[in-house]
């Protein structure tokens, strides 16, 4: 099965990295999180309630809505902070990407581990830019707010196509579909991964060196 895949590309200031990714991932998770399932007896269950929280951004003109679960928020923030650190505090990379992947597990025979099959992947590619003055920052702040607003509309459009999501499982298979580690809500199984790339400004030098090395190796 091929996973659906969407990519967002943005140029942002270093301090905007976290909020850009948070606003997008939380908007996605809002749609991909259900209330907690409680199985009453074989085959029947009740669903809990999902709370709603408005979050204002500090460095972008944007308010986004997230699921009212502090633990889920914390888990997402932790992953995004690690992405931000790798982008901001290393000398090299000034661009990178972070992905939110929804997957389901398929049990495998012992001793193999369960197979993870992604069904939807959302990727945010970021270029980190430096701005010269406060005026440019203000423009950027508004511009990124507008761009993210468009993305929120786009997410709504995709979510309302009602394409494939894993079927509601029996109790024994609940943790093959959902992340059951949260006490208050139940998102579909997800994982966040990120990578960074070398800055484009030095890529010419690097590729030249590589070219020379390759030539010598011949």
């Amino acid at each position, binding site marked *: 099965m091929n996973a659906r895949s969407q990519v967002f590309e943005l140029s942002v200031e270093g301090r905007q990295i976290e909020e850009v990714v948070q606003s997008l991932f939380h*908007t996605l998770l809002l749609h991909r999180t259900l209330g*907690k399932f409680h199985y009453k007896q074989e085959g029947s269950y009740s*669903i809990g*309630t999902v709370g*709603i*929280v408005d979050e204002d951004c500090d460095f972008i003109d944007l308010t986004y809505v997230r699921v009212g679960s502090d633990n889920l928020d914390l888990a997402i923030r932790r992953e995004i902070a690690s992405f931000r650190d790798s982008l901001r505090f290393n000398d090299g990379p000034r661009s990178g990407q972070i992905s939110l992947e929804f997957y389901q597990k398929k049990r495998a025979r012992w001793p193999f581990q369960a197979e993870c099959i992604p069904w939807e992947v959302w990727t945010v590619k970021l270029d980190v830019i430096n701005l010269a003055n406060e005026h440019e920052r203000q423009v950027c702040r508004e511009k990124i707010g507008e761009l993210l607003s468009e993305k929120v509309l786009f997410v709504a459009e995709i*979510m*309302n196509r009602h394409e494939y999501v894993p079927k509601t499982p029996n109790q024994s298979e609940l943790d093959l579909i959902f992340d059951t580690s949260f006490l208050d809500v139940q998102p579909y199984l997800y994982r966040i991964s990120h990578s960074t790339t070398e800055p484009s400004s030095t890529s010419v030098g690097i590729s030249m060196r590589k070219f020379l090395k390759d030539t010598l190796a011949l």
Partner: protein
Amino acid sequence: MASTSGRLSAQDRKDLEKFTNFFVLKSLQIIVQSRLGEKIKTKSKPVSSGADWFNLAIKDTPEVHIEAKKVIAGQQSMLAQNVCTEISLRTTEGETMVLETWYTDFDSEEIDSSVKVSYGVYNRMGIALKSLFGVSRVPPAYRLARKQSINGSDYVICYRFYLGEPQFFQLGDGYQKSTVGVVPTPVGKITLNLAYRTKLLMSPHRTTRDLPFEVKDDHFKSECSPRKQTEPKPCSLGFRRTSISDDCRLDSQDLCSTTFSTSPPDYAYITAASSYKTPAINIGTGTKQQLPPIDQRPQSAPEKSNSFSTLHRVGAFAQPKSLKDIPLKGLEEIPFLSLLNNQAVKTDTTPVKDNPETCSSSGENMETANSSTGSELNKSTSSQTSAPDDFVMVELKTPFAGVDSNNDLGRFYRDCQGALSQSMFEEGTTLNDTLDQVTTQLAMFETKMKDFDDFVGSFHELDQ
């Protein structure tokens, strides 16, 4: 709908109508609440109370609920007419500008017969409402609504519900349309849309105080005419009179008229056949929630004529406050005013908590805290005579200060007040001397310019 509804069982049809009804009600709540000017925060509940439709924690605003019910009641059949919400801005001068129109329409041509009413459609409605949550924070009206809560803003955001064709002409040139949520059902497609104004500049020509053209009585078709033009109401009105509880949200008939009345927890269980992963819904196994009689539930205050000017004066979108708090507002700007009050108490040698006036005025925790601090201050060792008249606070024992008032804030303040004048002002220097001094200083800076550059450079290196 009539041609296709035959495929559905009577129960499914009934459920679908009920779901649609609540979908519309909840969407209207979400829209109006997003224009309150305040941030929404509701908690997730592992176990639903049974009144949370679509598994979403949406606190209903009673006034909005009543208005929405009135509008929906005007429909002949399920979404026979579009349900529209108009969000407008009204200034203190009474000028009005329509900012956006949200509308729910129904297309009976597009049928999705593969989806089951119970849970399938229900779940899709939940997703559409989540999208509505997200998207409602995006248009320009959201920012305007948030800014109205700042004191001194000269406008208020209003809402109005109506049935029929959305009146786009009120949104000015260049308005934009967007689809927010789509719910395909076995009888047709429900779509939740937004049209919003992009030109927010207010001019006399743009306002919609009066319609821009003469409208005859029979201008609109009778079935799509907003027959009873309702007056837009400030979004915050209901919110400020919050009497929200789970009980007042649902009329008892909402629970009785259908067995699958709310989210699955107690009313409808989803049964999964052991051989098949997709659960089927077993409806009506739950017990009904006992609600208090309607007349015992919290009732909202009777509708008054909503003059914006009166609302505005009490801070239309500010936190609820009693009117008698307002005159104190100016006085609060004097730091530690509450400490001054306690001076009076001290002279009376009456304990603060026994003073009925103090107790009655300290409605909020903060004020209570100040009062109790004040009673401690009565033991302060310093006297009032040593301080200038316009400064009383130094005489009081501040919460974190030492025992000796000469070592604390009082000393600091006195030092500042009676600061020695600088020697350069005492010497009678001429203008020329001063200029010379400045010139030599500038020259010195210029010679040391490299040092400064190096110094700044070192910071830059550290940064990298």
